[in-house]
Structures are given as structure tokens and as C-alpha cells.
């Protein structure tokens, strides 16, 4: 406790530290980032093969398909958030560090989003092209992914932390997290679809943004609590 006094005035340093460390780690294993992106593109490319390649049909399903593919792709990257640090004991050291764990978790979430959500959003125009979406709709899709994927990371972090070191972790995380992703899917795909049918889409985007802000306030605490539970139990 005495040790903590000196640094508590700068908890944001914990955030910056966790953020830069995780970014550096991802940059050194770039393969994982690229794999998630390729997965995103492959999943989205399966649908025309399954349902047929009529442009009207593809345009209709594009927002949903791209969003579902993004959701699954974020889901696959969730183990990267904490599992590596958990298995080699780093997570325990982070929990013991003088910085609040909540702040560290916030940094890790931000790094995760920068390495998954942002690339996915930037990749989405390519898929939009495949599905024949008009330019302005593509922009809405990109923007909705950009402000919606943080929520996927944040909710996913809670699920990933709860299942740390648990057998059957990946499928279990999906079971926990996917039902909670539904509102994001509805508003994200909804915004794009609204843009396509030419009705107002700003309400969808506002709700996504509100979700990201609210989630940013609440989920680091929940994820940090879940990590503490996982560390206590082992």
C-alpha cells in the first residue's frame, strides 16, 4: 500500500504502459492480426457461394454478413487479450502492480481494439466492393464498424477473463459472449441497412457510440473483477 502512494497520482501511466506493451507484442506477431483479417474476408466470401451471387440479394444481405463476420473474427481474437499473459504468469504480476488493474485492463482493451476492430473496419470497404455496395453505404459500414467494434472488445474481455484457464475455453467464451453481442449486431448492421434503403441511420450510430462510451466506463471494472476471480481461484 505504501508503495502505491507514489504512483497512484498517475494511474494513466498504467494505461499507457499496458497499451504500448500490448501493441508492441502484437506488432511482433503480426501474423495473428493478419489471420483474423483473412478469416473476416473468407467468412464474408462464403456467403455468395452459399446463397447465390445475384447483386440485389447480395446487397440486401451485405450489412448483416459483414457484421456477423466481424463479430466472429473478433471472437476468435479474444484469447489474445489475456490468455497468453495468464498462462505465463504476467497477468498475475500486472494484477500485483501498483497501477489499478481496471486501468491496465482498459489499456489492454484499447490495444486489442486497435489491432482487431480498426483493421476490420479498414478492410470492410473491400467486402463492400465484393457485395456491390454503393460508396456512401460503404462509408456508413466502415464508420459503424469503427465505433461498434470497441463494444465487441469490451464485452468480449469480460467473457475472455471469466474463462481464463478453463477447459473448453474458446467455445465457452463464444457461448457467453455471443448473446451479449446481439444489440451491437442489430445497431451496426441496422445502420448500414438504413443507409442502403435511404432512411436516417444516425440514430443507430448514436446508439452504437453511446454503447461504446457506456461500455468504456463500465466494462473495465467488470473485466478486472473477472480477472481477479480467475487469479484467486487458481
Amino acid at each position: 500500500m505504501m508503495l502505491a502512494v507514489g504512483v497512484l497520482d498517475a494511474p494513466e501511466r498504467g494505461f499507457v504502459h499496458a497499451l504500448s506493451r500490448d501493441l508492441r507484442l502484437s506488432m511482433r506477431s503480426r501474423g495473428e492480426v493478419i489471420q483474423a483479417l483473412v478469416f473476416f474476408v473468407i467468412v464474408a466470401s462464403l456467403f455468395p457461394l452459399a446463397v447465390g451471387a445475384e447483386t440485389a440479394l447480395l446487397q440486401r444481405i451485405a450489412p448483416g454478413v459483414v457484421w456477423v463476420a466481424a463479430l466472429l473474427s473478433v471472437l476468435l481474437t479474444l484469447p489474445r487479450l489475456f490468455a497468453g499473459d495468464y498462462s505465463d504468469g504476467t497477468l498475475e504480476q500486472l494484477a500485483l502492480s501498483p497501477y489499478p488493474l481496471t486501468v491496465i485492463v482498459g489499456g489492454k482493451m484499447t490495444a486489442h481494439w486497435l489491432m482487431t476492430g480498426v483493421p476490420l473496419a479498414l478492410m470492410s470497404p473491400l467486402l463492400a466492393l465484393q457485395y456491390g455496395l454503393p460508396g456512401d453505404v460503404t462509408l456508413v459500414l466502415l464508420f459503424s464498424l469503427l465505433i461498434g467494434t470497441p463494444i465487441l472488445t469490451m464485452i468480449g474481455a469480460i467473457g475472455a477473463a471469466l474463462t481464463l484457464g478453463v477447459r473448453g475455453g474458446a467455445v465457452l467464451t463464444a457461448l457467453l459472449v455471443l448473446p451479449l453481442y446481439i444489440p451491437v449486431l442489430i445497431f451496426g448492421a441496422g445502420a448500414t441497412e438504413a443507409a442502403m434503403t435511404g432512411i436516417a441511420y444516425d440514430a443507430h450510430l448514436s446508439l452504437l457510440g453511446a454503447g461504446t462510451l457506456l461500455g468504456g466506463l463500465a466494462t473495465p471494472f467488470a473485466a478486472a473483477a473477472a480477472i481477479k476471480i480467475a487469479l484467486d481461484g487458481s
Partner: protein
Amino acid sequence: MNIFKYASPVSFHPLAGKLWPWFAALAILFGAAGMYFGLVVAPSDFQQGEVYRIIFIHVPAAWMGMFIYLLMAGYGVMALTFNTRLSSMMMEALAPTGAMFTALMLWTGALWGRPTWGTYWLWDARMTSALILLFLYIGYLALIHSIEDTRRRDKAGALLAIVGSVNVPIIYFSVQWWNTLHQGSTISMTAAPKMAQVMLLAMLLMTLACWMYAIAVAMVRVRVIIEERGELRTGHHDGT
């Protein structure tokens, strides 16, 4: 004697043992009365005929499915703030019953929908939310059954139930929003015909029966959980 005495698994175990047969008996009693009024006394509906009688199990099951999840989240808050083991055990004991009622609500809803609307399933806001609620129950059960350490299982389950319950209203409103945008059908489920007094009575009795059943089953199950965890062997100690 103070009421917190029964917050200890060791002293709750015999109490639950004494109480559950009473709740079970009440469940049978209310259930029999409810079925008598619902199936025999209540007149058949002039629009839907006899099929409407599924309402007497469908509506109580829906209430129980939703209420038990909230109850679990309430126990979850207690488990995390007061660190009481019994609260987590109650969550674990309630979850299968809640999931069962939610599944029963979906199933009876499908059976009711087929003759009245001509379809087993509609992507209606309420039905979709009910399905998601079932997913939330399944997630909780899957999580607690894959964690072996009981302390961790209790707390992780509590946290998940709380996170889930915060999300329930968000999910409900988002699904409703989604549904109004994707107006696929014009069937209104809220326009229920005015119910006769006797139908209401039957539904009330069936709801009470479901309540009593849920309490009895949860008590039996919590006794098993207490025994499984060896609480009775290690003797009396509160908290962790």
C-alpha cells in the same frame, strides 16, 4: 435467533429439508386446482377454441423464466458483496429451473402459435428476446460446469449473471427496435382478448403452482449442492 443464521449452508440444509415437502405439496395442490379451473371450468374461447388453454402454462412459464434470471442476478450481487456461499449455491440451484421454464415458454409458445397464427416461430421481439434469455441461461450453466474450483465458479457465475442481467433490458429494447424496422408480419400478440374472471383465476393458480415448484426444486437442489461440496462434513464456519 437471527435470520442470518440461515445464510450458512450448514444451518440452511436442515431447514430446506424440512420446508421443501411443503412447497412440493402446495405446488401439486395449486397445480391441480389451476388445471381444474383452466381445463374444466373455464369456457372455451370463441375465437381460438380450446387451444388457448395453453396460456395457463405458457404465461406462468414466461414469468418464471424472466423472474428467475433476475433472482439469480440478485443472488449474484449478494454473493459478490457479502461473500456468502449460500447465495452462489442458490444461483446454481435456480439456473436449471429457470432454463427449463424459459424452454417451456418457447415450446408452448410454438405449439400455441402453430394453430393460432399458422407458424411455429416468428422473429417477433418477444420470442427473440426469450430465445436470447435461454442462451444466457445456457451460458451461465456452461460456465459454472466447466470451472472445477468452487470458489472461482461461484464468483465467475455471479459476475456473469450480473453482466447478463444488465444486458437483458438492452437486448430487449434493441430486439424490439430491430423488430419494428423489420416488420415482417402484422400479428399483434398484445391484443389479447379480454379474459374472463375464471381464466384469470386459473392462470393465477398455475403461476402459484410454478412458484411453489421452483422453490421446492431449488431447495432440493441446493441441499444436494451443499452435500456435494462437503459443507456438512467440515463443520460450522461462516463466510470464506
